[in-house]
């Protein structure tokens, strides 16, 4: 029969199914096969490969890129470009934000946030130095009991991160925290909350002890300093903008000034007084009023001359996380953030969706003018898992629904909910990925792998979903890389290894199969070189019968056990031929049927 060359079409995709379920392919239709016809062979099993236009290539070798490993467990790792074109890596981790600058080899713990600080979880720190040093480390009985957090329930709660980009600034939020972290792409002036007070006043006064201020006309301004935590939780002083206290004068030696602020919103920690005496140089005197909600303090001493006035506001370097504090919202309940058009959005544990003012991303006071709003959409069924922006709209992914909210500024409500599906939902935030456009989203939903494009819901690759769904660990996370490659990450190996048959045949069969032996005699010598074996004798018999080694015996005969000797562990078998109908290339087995002895232990 003539040779038949065939070509396997490597342009066809690998089929991600269980290799055990892949049916054999038949290239050539014979009469007996007709009229069935199946596609040609394709790849159906493998590891670490990626498609090319013409076929497949091995891929996913690994090069370790950085000397230092990320010291914390990360939930998200993204690259963000600053205005200086520096790309920084931002890792949102279990203990806060870690940042790796392009200029540094090391990760820096840039912000501390374990989530839930709006809830009020605290850790007992009663472990004193005495206790620490007085017990015997080797003796368990002397271990200190203090500092034990008894309530395991509280520390069990995990607070996931969410992030978004608005106006080229990176915003990250950890659930139930009181602050949103902003990483700006360019340096910004640090603006602490504006000083809010009912009234301010400065008046010449006679203090209990004589003051040292010289007489003259004073031009006085001040700024209030608040102690605030920096991104790592350390205390630092942050100042308000300059507050004008007007011009006044001291008319008699020994007098000073009395400075009063009424109904301060935030208790001060420091009052920096700047003054100009008779048009001379600016001076600064720092006063420390008690931290209550008013200031009533005497200023009696001269201050230091300052070189420049007004004082420089502190600059926040680009790429530095700074906390921002939203107004109006109950932060303990907030679950995550998203970009809603050009506004910042929150959703909370009660499924309410809040959108910020268009003027101030941290202003959530509902207002028709600023478009800030808090809404619960009745079409959302189940708990909101995540919300993703879609151009000027956003899509709510809940556990049993997907709702698209369309921006319509002219309507009564800014966002018009439009149910995409009420039957499918996702369980975990990472079960949805965004493609090349925000309007092109992929979700691993409860009904299948879906593509959501322009509000249309379409199930894709149901067979792949079925395979993934059938595994022990059915959790699958999606991630889109380069806007093109959709990864379906799985806790389990996706498929089990291909199962091979376990029959063990004498390797000398292989000698004959390649024509390595010129004659039956030579073949027999090879097969019996280490003593007769069952398989070898079978193969030899087959050679005799068929004229070609290693061809037919396993199809034409079966073994019948004749006897067994338990003392020696030797079984005796006889070869029984299977009756065959005459077809081409087939020979009927003939006598003698040898009996062979087989060791089975």
């Amino acid at each position, binding site marked *: 029969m003539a040779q038949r060359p065939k070509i396997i079409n490597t342009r066809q995709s*690998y089929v991600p199914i269980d290799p055990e379920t892949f049916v054999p392919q038949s290239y050539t239709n014979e009469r007996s096969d007709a009229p069935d016809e199946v596609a040609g062979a394709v*790849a159906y099993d493998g590891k670490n*490969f990626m498609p090319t236009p013409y076929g497949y290539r091995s891929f996913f070798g*690994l090069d370790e890129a950085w000397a230092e490993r990320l010291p914390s467990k990360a939930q998200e790792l993204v690259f963000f470009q600053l205005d200086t074109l520096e790309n920084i890596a931002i890792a949102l981790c279990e203990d806060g934000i870690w940042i790796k600058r392009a200029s540094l080899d090391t990760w820096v713990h840039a912000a501390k946030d374990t989530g839930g600080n709006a809830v009020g979880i605290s850790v007992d720190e009663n472990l004193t*130095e005495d206790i620490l040093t007085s017990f015997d480390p080797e003796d368990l009985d002397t271990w200190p009991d203090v500092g034990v957090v008894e309530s395991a329930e509280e520390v069990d709660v995990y607070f996931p991160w969410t992030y978004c980009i608005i106006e080229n600034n990176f915003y990250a939020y950890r659930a139930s925290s009181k602050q949103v972290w902003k990483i700006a792409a360019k340096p910004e002036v640090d603006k602490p909350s504006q000083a809010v007070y009912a009234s301010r006043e400065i008046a010449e006064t006679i203090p209990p002890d004589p003051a040292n201020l010289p007489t003259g006309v004073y031009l006085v301004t001040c700024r209030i300093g608040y102690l605030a935590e920096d991104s790592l939780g350390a205390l630092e002083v942050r100042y308000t903008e300059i507050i004008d206290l007007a011009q006044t004068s001291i008319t008699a030696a020994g007098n000073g000034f009395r400075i009063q602020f009424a109904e301060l919103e935030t208790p001060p920690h420091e009052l920096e007084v700047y003054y100009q005496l008779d048009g001379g140089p600016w001076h600064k005197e720092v006063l420390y009023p008690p931290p209550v909600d008013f200031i009533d303090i005497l200023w009696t001493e001269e201050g230091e001359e300052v070189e420049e006035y007004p004082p420089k506001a502190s600059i926040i370097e680009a790429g530095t996380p700074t906390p921002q504090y939203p107004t109006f919202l109950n932060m303990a309940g907030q679950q995550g953030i998203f970009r809603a058009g050009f506004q910042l959005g929150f959703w909370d544990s009660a499924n309410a969706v809040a959108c910020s003012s268009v003027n101030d991303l941290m202003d959530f006071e509902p207002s028709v003018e600023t478009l800030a709003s808090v809404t619960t959409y009745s079409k959302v069924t189940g708990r909101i898992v995540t919300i993703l922006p879609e151009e000027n709209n956003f899509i709510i992914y809940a556990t049993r629904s997907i709702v698209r909210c369309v921006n319509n500024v002219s309507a009564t409500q800014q966002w018009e909910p439009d149910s995409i599906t009420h039957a499918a939902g996702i369980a975990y935030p990472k079960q949805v990925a965004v493609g090349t456009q925000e309007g092109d989203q992929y979700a691993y939903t409860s009904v299948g792998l879906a593509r959501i494009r322009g509000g249309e819901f379409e199930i894709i690759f149901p067979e792949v979903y079925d395979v993934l769904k059938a595994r022990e660990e059915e959790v699958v996370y999606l991630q889109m890389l380069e806007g093109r490659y959709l990864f379906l990450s799985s806790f389990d190996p996706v498929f089990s290894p291909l199962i*091979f048959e376990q029959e063990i045949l004498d390797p000398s069969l292989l000698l004959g199969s390649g024509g390595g032996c010129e004659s039956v005699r030579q073949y027999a010598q090879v097969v019996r070189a280490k003593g007769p074996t069952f398989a070898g004798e079978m193969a030899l018999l087959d050679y005799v019968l068929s004229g070609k080694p290693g061809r037919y015996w396993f199809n034409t005969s079966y073994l019948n056990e004749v006897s067994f000797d338990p003392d020696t562990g030797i079984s005796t078998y006889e070869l029984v031929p299977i009756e065959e109908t005459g077809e081409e290339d087939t020979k009927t087995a003939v006598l003698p049927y040898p009996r062979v002895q087989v060791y089975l232990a």
Partner: protein
Amino acid sequence: MPGAFSSPFLGFVEFDAGAPLVDPAVHGLAGEMYIPPSLRTASDLKLLAQCKSIGLFLQYAQWLESSGDPDIEPSAVLPPDYPWDFMKWLNQDPIIRIFVDKEIEWAQLETELNGYEVKPRLHTGNEEIPHPRNAYFAYATTQAILARQWHQKISKIKDYTVLDLDMYFDPRDSAGFTWSNPPTQVEWMQAINARLTRLGVFANAQLKLQEIQNAWLEEGQYLRYDLLYKLDFQASVTFPEAFWHWGGLAFHDLSGRLIEEPRTCGCPAVFPSLMVTPTRYLPFVEATNVNLIETEIITEYEINPPGWFGPDFNAYGMIFDATNGTFIQDVPNSFEPGTPTYGANTDTRELVTTDGSTTTTQNNAAYAVFQVREWYLGPQINPNTGNLVGVSSRPTLMLIDEEGNSYASSSNPERLRLRERAEKIAVEQLYGMWGFIPAWAEMNGFTRDTYVNFHRGFYKNFDSWKYWYQRASLDEKQRMIDFDYVFPYIFSVMVADDTVNSTTTETGSTTETTTESIQSIILRDDRYIMTETRTEQHVRAQLKLRWRKLAFNEGVVGNDVSIFVDENFQEPAINPYYVGFTSVISYGTEADNHQVHMVYRQLAVDPKSWGMTNLNAFELEAAGDDFSYLSLQALSLDQSRMLTKHLFAPNETILHYLPSVGKESLDAQQSIIKSYLGQLPGSVWLNQYGSQAPLFPVFQEALVLDTQLNKWGKMSVPHRLLVDLSPINSHRQRKVASSTFSIQAAMLGVEGELFTFNDKPGYSELRYGKLGYHRLGFTDLEEMRVWFAKQSTGILQIEPSYSGDKPESSFIQEFEFDDTTSVVANYSLSARWYNVTLKGNYDVKGIEFIGRKSARR
């Protein structure tokens, strides 16, 4: 009875292979033999990651005959309240129930035909158990079936399990070895073995075993099956050999006590009706790449001692080479500041006066160099209770000087006084440098002394440090180690005698007065860079540990060394298929030490010989009189999970096999899971708390859909996160080497590494397949051509299937190709269909298949 039943497998128990040893010397790891966690390399961690469970075996178990000799055959003792309810258990499993019913039916039929019931040969003790004899038979058969399945699963795993190890070995590990070039398999096995020993893996396994044994002994004299099964909880590995199968096993004594194991409550498995195809496997190590690597590690520390440096004092000779501007010591964590010396370092001044006379003044002086470190502890978890035991978030400044108590314990009061004074001066200086200390102290209600610890020795020998370190998590340990490298400040203190020396000498007409004052605090004024340079040598090897199936009489040649031709394979009294992995895991040479064999133990079952199946597992055999029942599981956790998954039908739980396990145990297990997983919203509508998933998962594989080519790919690398290298707010920055048709992306590895992808994977395969010309008969493949788009290196593997069901592993042929753009494979065996598998680094653009129709019937 021919053949001894070898150790039955009880299950896996997880243990912490890398737990720090409290006293390594007890385990024969004195001195530098023990590699503490702080010194582990990444390779060590990978190696440790492979050692997660211990397989437990009953040792010396054997089938008993009723010989009547109480010495040989202990009488059967069941606990009076043993929860034995055969039918209840039977009903737990409908499949087995059907099977049993069918067996009963057959037995009844046979009874009718033969006129008598075929009685299984049972132990006399079994006469009292009230259930049908045939059920024994059914169960034995079922067990044999399960055993065969188990065997097949293991075979499958071993056929296609390649454990990739990218190892770095410090040459000192191999000091006792004679290395070949390249190193042979045996040498690598020995090196791995030695490393495991030094890491304390075996010691930890022993400790765990001791713990288990003690727990058993506390339970009383009976070895209860439910206790044994509890072992399976955490590993989630169950074993097909159900408990009733073990009836008749004798349990040798544990820890000097004789435990009489009930031997009559199960089926004496004398009726296995199925045979298992004997197969031998050989684990072997293949080193694909071996290099000797020299790494020069240069670390710079910038040190800014505040204050000033007194004149006339060469205080830094011990640690600072003023000429070269570098520190002299080797590595930071062995840094030892200058030795305080007394007497020998007396301050001697000579004054020469104008008339030539000399006056010498000598005073005692002490000087010491102090390191100041910030010290951060906690929070820490109590490993026993799982609770947080304390948080110390305050930095603690620590002054340390050289190790040694000679002066501290000195009876010389003058030295003691000098030391105290030096310390006091140092503390005062610290307060000056760290002005916030008093404020902190006030804030926290402490005294400022609280913030200064004195420790006269290595930092790591500081008791509290050790305490925390031994209890810290891996992450925390790493942080503590990292932190230990910080040198915030170094300064020296010199203390003189109380007197400030003022010497006036008058000679003749000339009077010269010299007032000498030694500064109490002497600090360097400038800042300097400490450069630390060290060279490390490693043997680096990329290893593959895989299982090679052996046919009869076959040996294996690996890496130029022929090994493991089992000489005893035909001796039935000894396990004929015993293939030891002793060269990898054996350790110790003395009789007292354990010999760990990773044994692929295969016993074929012959029903007539009354031999019994033993299943494949790895086993520790005790040498000498020490009896432990340990095996080191060579499979990774994933692989063992795979074993479990394929072992039984889905949705089976341990309750199917062990109804006596209480619900509270399962609840406890749930509680553990919950504490790990936290709470996430649910998407499924079952009676459960949401849908659980790990918070910081490690994914095993990923399917990749190229949404533009609409073709699938697959990534089989454990990963935590996939990372898009493009900034999320910018266009792509081509910082990563570009190659045609691939992703420029990265992933976060299991240990926090950032890996970028390349097209040279450690392992890759792609299987095209099930090619046949027609369905009636065979196809005779004669030639296979594969074309590559670029130079490729790897293996082309042809896998024929004769049965038409699965490919036949015995006839796999491999064709290597090396740096070529095409490969031609000539083949001559007929089959119903073929697979074509590409392995290695390839870029396939076309495959041709040339053959004939054959053997059509």
